[in-house]
Structure formats: C-alpha cells, structure tokens
C-alpha cells in the first residue's frame, strides 16, 4: 500500500478550476431482532461467535430463509426515499474470498434492487435545499469482523494472523446508492455530509435502525471525481471506503478534491481505485487493487425465491410511515412560532428533540429555546460535548422554567439553579432548597433590608423623600445585594416608595 505524500492543491484553488462530482453509498444495519437469512439473534456487543448459526457460518447444507421484517424495513426506507418499489426482485450471490465472509459469497441484490429511482431533499446549514437523486436501495447482509494480530498497529499490514468473529455476519443491511451528484460545486463536501446526516435522521425516524454512527450502524463510501467544467464528461472517480462520521465524510470529499486536483495539475491521471480513509491524518491512501477484485461473478441466489412485494402491502407500509424529519421540522416550527433563522440554529445545534421534550414538560417554546440555545449551548461548547450529552434533562428544564413562571425564582437565580443541576446537585427544586435560592417574597425581610439601606444612605433617602426618584436605583441595588439577588426588584421598588412616603 502506498503512503506516497502528494502535495495537495488548496481547496479554493481546486474548486476554481475543477467541477467536483460526488456519489455516495450508505450502508445501514437494520435493527431487526434476527439476522437477514437466519434466526440468530442480531444484537450488539455479545461475546464473539455467540450469535451464530449454521447459516451465518456458511456450513454445508444450511439453507437461508428471508427475514420478512427486514424486507418491510427495506421497503419503508425505499418509500421514504421516494423510490419505486420493485414488482419483483431477487437476491444474488456476490462471490469473493475473504475470511469475514464465511460462505465465500455475500448474499446481496444485483440487477434487481427492491427500491429504485428516488430522491431525497437535503437541507444545508444555511437553509439551502439540495436534491440528491437516489439510484437504488438494495438488501444485503453484513460481514463478520476481523481482528489482525501481530504487527505494530493492529492493522492488517504486518499482521501475523487474524481472528474472526461472525456475530455480525448476516446482519441485515440496506445499501443506498446515489446517482452522480452534480451542481454542488464548492459545497460538495457539505452536501455529502448533509446527505449522510439526513439519511441517519431518516433511519431513526423510520425506526428501522438505531443508526449509531459510532457503532458502525451507518457507514458511507464516498466517490469523488473532477472535471474541468460542468459541461465536461464525468472524470475518473475514486471510492473512499468506510467513512464513518459526518465530519469525516465532509473531510474525505474535501481531501479527495484537493488530491485529485494535484494529480491532474501534475499532468497525471486519476486512477479508478478504492481508497482508505485515515481519520488521524484526514487523508486517503490507495488500497491496492487486485486485478480480479471487481470480478464478483454475480448470479441469482438459487437458495432463495424471488420477492414480489404485494402492492396492498406496499401501500399499507406507505400509509403507516411516520412523519419524516423534514415534515416534522416544518410542523414544529409552525407550532413553536420560531423564525426561519431561529429554527435553523435549533436544527444545527441538534436541539429539536430537546426543545420538543422541554415543551412537553410544560415550558413555553420560546423559553425552551432560550435555555437550550443560550446558557446550555454555551455550557456544551465549553465542555466540548453535544447538547444532548449535558447532564440535564428536558424535564428538569421544564421544572426550572416552571419555577420562574411561578415567580419563585428570577432569571438570575434560575441561572444559578441551572448551574447546580449541571453540577449534579439534583432537580431544580432540590437545588433551590439546598442553595436557598428562592426569591424573598415575604415583605418582612425586604423591609428590614430597605430600612437598613435608607439609614445607610441618608442623603439619598432625603432626595427620594423630596420627590427626586432618580437615586431610587441605588437603594434597590443595595437591597438586592443584601438579599443576594433573591428579591424581586419590582417589589423592592414599590416597598421603597411606600416607605419614604409614609
């Protein structure tokens, strides 16, 4: 494998002279209870080789049977991607030898995918909507997992032998393939990331997968090619495999654009090949392509009969589709009365669910937004975590706002309560009690503090008595200070005026 260092062309420079075209293949592991072709439990994190059966081990004489729920999930995905659902389709064998594929072929779909000709509208951070055409979505099975032993880095290079765990072998996958994505120009990396993110959100909304990137539930292969102008024929593409975070998808596209521009500038030709993504360096390297690597000798799977989804069943699945993320965003924006820019910030901050739950806990939408997009967003940024990872729940924010609404705490105290909840001191009510943060609503202590303040500043007291209300703020300030901010300033003002006029 080559680690040759290429001088990259500056991204803006590359974009000024080349038109990038991208294509993305997304694999999603379906959240079924069992595998695609056998009844082995499809879990996560079990002991190695404890979720295997003769079928998922590819033992002679074992016969696959299709998981009907997996087919339903695939149709659900196809419909949500605005695809046509095949009248009839088949599985095919994709033949290759690799230790994580115990049968020596992967059961996949080849020329007859279950869903085809769709599209998905992707919203970029600034609100621009970009339509990505979907060529197909097909069903297949996952491979096992190899662990390379020996060698210095745990990578295959230099490994002495490998260990194989087949728990993942046979987990249902749906692979979604785009048509070439053109017209994105300099925003191609951003479109790529937003597309994968949109699909992830869709999988979750459809409840077909937990779609956790960090567990590899969703994996992306990113194709990139360059051409001199948008009118030119498509250039030679590379395929960067297994890019498994949103940020990496964006970085991988960006890197390939800069790298390919450098190759073309030097008078070279881009080699059509598989490339590997290196998270640590943000670069790709060539995966050595074997001459027969692409010769998979697909043929129809003789052990499985065709799938012909009944039209009534397809329509039933369509009718039962949940509200999809884009429609939900529009509905919530209307219900909450947020401006476009406000809603976009909420979406980009990943705060929709949090605000929705906070509103459900009784807070007004504006108040919910104020907390999550204000204090909490700042805290999350300081701690370098996602909003949802903060140790505070929407229910607690709802309770906090309820205390404000009831007049038991003011905004300033509420921030201290928030601090206490984030510090693990319990629910807002507990923090209020433990820290003694309640607004002093009993006039007695307030009057004492007012009298003390007036006595301490007799000249100011005199001015107020003579009708000059200008310096009243100084007295209010002194009272607020004496009560550690726990007084209602409006009430203090009323009491001061009563006091001097009596």
């Amino acid at each position: 494998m080559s680690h040759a260092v290429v001088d990259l062309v500056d991204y803006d420079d590359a974009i000024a002279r080349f038109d990038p075209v991208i294509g993305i293949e997304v694999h999603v592991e379906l959240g079924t209870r069992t595998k695609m072709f056998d009844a082995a439990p499809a879990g996560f994190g079990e002991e190695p080789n404890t979720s295997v059966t003769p079928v998922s081990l590819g033992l002679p004489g074992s016969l696959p049977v299709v998981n009907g729920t997996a087919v339903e999930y695939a149709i659900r995905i196809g419909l949500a991607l605005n695809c046509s659902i095949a009248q009839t389709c088949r599985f095919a064998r994709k033949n290759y030898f690799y230790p994580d594929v115990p049968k020596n072929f992967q059961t996949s779909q080849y020329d007859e995918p279950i869903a085809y000709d769709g599209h998905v509208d992707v919203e970029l951070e600034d609100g621009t909507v970009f339509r990505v055409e979907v060529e197909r979505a097909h069903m297949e099975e996952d491979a096992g997992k190899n662990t390379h032993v020996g060698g210095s880095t745990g990578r295959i290079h230099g490994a002495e032998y490998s260990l194989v765990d087949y728990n993942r072998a046979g987990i249902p996958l749906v692979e979604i393939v785009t048509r070439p994505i053109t017209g994105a120009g300099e925003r191609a990396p951003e479109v790529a990331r937003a597309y994968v993110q949109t699909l992830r959100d869709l999988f979750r909304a459809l409840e077909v997968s937990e779609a956790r990137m960090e567990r590899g539930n969703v994996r992306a292969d990113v194709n990139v090619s360059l051409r001199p102008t948008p009118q030119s024929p498509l250039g030679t593409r590379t395929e960067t495999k297994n890019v498994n975070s949103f940020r990496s998808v964006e970085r991988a596209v960006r890197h390939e654009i800069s790298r390919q521009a450098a190759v073309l500038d030097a008078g070279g030709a881009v080699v059509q090949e598989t490339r590997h993504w290196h998270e640590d360096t943000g670069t790709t390297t060539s995966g050595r392509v074997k001459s027969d690597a692409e010769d998979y000798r697909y043929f129809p799977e003789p052990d499985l009969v065709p799938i012909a989804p009944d039209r009534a069943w397809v329509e039933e699945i369509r009718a039962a589709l949940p509200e999809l993320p884009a429609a939900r965003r529009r509905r919530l924006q209307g219900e909450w009365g947020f401006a476009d820019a406000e809603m976009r910030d909420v979406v980009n901050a990943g705060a929709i669910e949090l605000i929705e739950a906070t509103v459900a806990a009784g807070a007004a939408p504006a108040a919910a937004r104020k907390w999550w997009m204000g204090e909490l967003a700042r805290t999350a940024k300081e701690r370098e975590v996602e909003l949802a990872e903060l140790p505070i729940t929407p229910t607690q924010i709802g309770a906090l706002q309820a205390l404000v609404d009831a007049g038991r705490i003011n905004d300033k105290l509420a921030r201290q309560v928030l601090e206490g909840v984030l510090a693990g001191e319990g629910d807002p009510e507990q923090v209020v009690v433990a820290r003694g943060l309640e607004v002093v609503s009993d006039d007695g202590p307030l009057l004492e503090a007012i009298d003390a303040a007036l006595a301490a500043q007799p000249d100011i007291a005199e001015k107020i008595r003579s009708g000059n209300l200008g310096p009243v703020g100084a007295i209010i300030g002194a009272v607020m200070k004496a009560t550690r901010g726990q007084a209602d300033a409006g009430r203090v003002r009323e009491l001061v005026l009563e006091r001097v006029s009596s």
Partner: protein
Amino acid sequence: MSTLSRDEVARVAGLARIDLTPAELDRLAGELDVIVESVARVSEIATPDVPATSHPLPLTNVFRADVPEPPVDRDAVLAAAPAAQDGKFLVPQILGEDA
C-alpha cells in the same frame, strides 16, 4: 466453435482459487466448452417472451418471522475449526487484499 479459451479457464480457476496444472487447463478448456455449448442451446428455445428463471419452484415471498432462535454452541463450533483463539476463528495472515 470454441467459446472458452484456455486463458479464460485459467482466469476462472484463479478466481475460484483452484490451482490447475497446464495439462488440466488443456483438458478442462475442452470439457467446459462442451458444457457451455450444451447450456447455450437453451437460448434456442427460450425466446425473449420467456422470463428468466432463477428457481425451479413457482414460489415468491417465502419469509420467516423475525423471532430469534437459540444460536449454536460456540465451543462446539470452534472445536470444528482448524484453529481458534479468544473465542474467535484464527485464520492465517491475510495477504495484501486490504489495508
């Protein structure tokens, strides 16, 4: 008319990881040719209005309910493997296919 060249047979053998001697290649090129030609006669009967068939049974939509069944015992499985370690199958060094 020969449709299968000796080189083609060698390539297919390579894909299938079958190590053939030159003598075997010569013999199999001829034998496979006969098989391919015999099968090709199907296309004389199967006119374009005959749909391609991948399965002899006129069945579709044979589905299984998504209900787990007990997996097989790992120790029994690994006992049948040439080598195992840490509950996993141990396979020889994988050469140069991936990185």
